[in-house]
């Protein structure tokens, strides 16, 4: 019997396609030549999350990314954001400001109580991730300071 050579090219191609098209299995046949590749395992943790869900924080992917960002100031409580001390007043802080540790960044209202949120970081405020009067949940990134 002649030594058989496996042509790996098509397997790699199909495997890439599998990923790209988010498939579990591809079977391919052309005359006498046939390949089938399949991938399992990952489906388990996929989506037993049937209902469309609106998360209160209106998380964008962008925000989600900042969850583990060391620059993020995260909400210590559930409530409603106020970026100014009172209506019409100036914002506590603006993008580009130099922020000192302990400086008040915004207010979160919860149970009719106004809770000033102070910075635990020092540096430049590079991004405000929330809007005035937006509802936030615990742990939600509010601002980025670097």
């Amino acid at each position, binding site marked *: 019997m002649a030594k058989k050579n496996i042509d790996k090219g098509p397997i790699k191609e199909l495997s890439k396609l599998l990923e790209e098209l988010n498939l579990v299995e591809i079977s391919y046949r052309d005359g006498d030549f046939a390949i089938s590749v399949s991938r399992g395992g990952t489906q388990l943790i996929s989506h037993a*999350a*049937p*209902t469309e869900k609106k998360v209160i924080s209106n998380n964008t992917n962008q925000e989600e990314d900042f969850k583990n960002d060391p620059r993020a100031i995260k909400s210590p*409580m*559930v409530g*409603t954001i106020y970026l100014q001390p009172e209506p019409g007043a100036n914002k506590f802080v603006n993008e580009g400001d130099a922020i000192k540790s302990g400086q008040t960044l915004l207010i979160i209202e919860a149970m009719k109580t106004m809770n000033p949120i102070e910075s635990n970081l020092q540096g430049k405020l590079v991004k405000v991730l929330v809007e005035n009067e937006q*509802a936030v*949940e*615990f742990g939600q990134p509010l601002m980025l300071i670097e």
Partner: protein
Amino acid sequence: MFDKVLIANRGEIAVRINRACQELGISTVAIHSEADADSMHVRIADESVCIGPNPVNKSYLNTHSIIAACEITGAQAVHPGYGFLSENASFSKMLEDHKLIFIGPNHSHISAMGDKIQAKKIMNEFGVPTVPGSDKAIESEKDAINISKDIGYPVLIKASAGGGGRGMKVVNDEKELKQSLPIIKQEALSFFGNDSVYIEKFIDSPRHIEVQVICDSHGNFLHLHERDCSVQRRNQKVLEEALAPGIEDEKKDELFQICISAMEKMQYLGLGTLEFLYENGEFYFMEMNTRLQVEHPITEMLTRIDLVREQICVAHGEKIFTNQDNIKPLGHSIECRINAENSSDFKPSVGTIGLFHPPAGNGIRLDTFIYSGYKVPHYYDNLLAKLIATGRTRNHAIKRALRSLNEMVIDGIDTNIDLHKKILSSEEFRKGSVSINWLENNISSL
């Protein structure tokens, strides 16, 4: 009906409540700790709010965060489920102060029934049979000795604020009483922040029988018959069934009438469970749970009344849709609590569930929140699922429970599925009427 309800719980009961809300057309808000972001109760809710870090006192017991979550989502009512804040009178009062509806009884009833001594006293006055004992907290060692002599040993010392099997001790004579009293008081103080204890007759090997009631604000006080929850381990219910085998109907009916009449006198609202010890033909009131019970599904299967749906409806001020004469329990139903724990050494198990294949088919109901790939966190209790098997007869329900336990697959973690198979296969359980000590005493030989 409410437009939006916040479900202040997690796990299977949060999923259960979410389903009832969806079926009533109510939008739901799930709350969750950071560890529970992927939990099923979050996934199936319409909205979700992360309310704190993983420890329960910072999340699921965090009343301020929960009320803030109502504010930002516009939820009008809170369903507390069981455990957590479900019997917390001050939380209920806080909600009232914030013009939010607590789906449960009036906070004064929660508070009255939360104090075991007061509850017993009230029920005694309403003619509900109670265990003979001190009607109030023990004042001194001498007081304790006199009362115990009156009742007759053995007696049980119990923390007034106790529960879940903590803060109690059986003593067989005066010497033991003198030794144990200070220890229990100390335990009561450290567990419950209150060293008040009372003494009652120790019932040796009773059964645990409980009566389900539901009451609306239109003068309807109904009972939904009884459940037998005698299969326990370390004072935790393991397997429950309805109806209770081997007790005469007249005996039960008499008890139901007493319960209903007590509810009427209290002007109770919502769901409630009166727990009794039963021995030698006598019922002794233990306590009343002013909330939905874990084991409510077996009552639902027999009466075909959706308890959670009705609980929400009566909290909203509606009338119960049926009346006592129309409630005719049919068949027999058994609930197996499937826990993440080893069937032999009962060590709790955490980790990632591989394949989850639930049992199904005629007469099988499964209440759960797990799914293939779910990571069981170690922060919370270990109830994974409730398997409810209902059949025409007790024997049929047992066989059905067994065949469905055989179908069930939960890979990756330990469960007590095998324990349930052993219980259901044992001769003594099949005969019926085991006592609350039975499982503990026979667990190694099952």
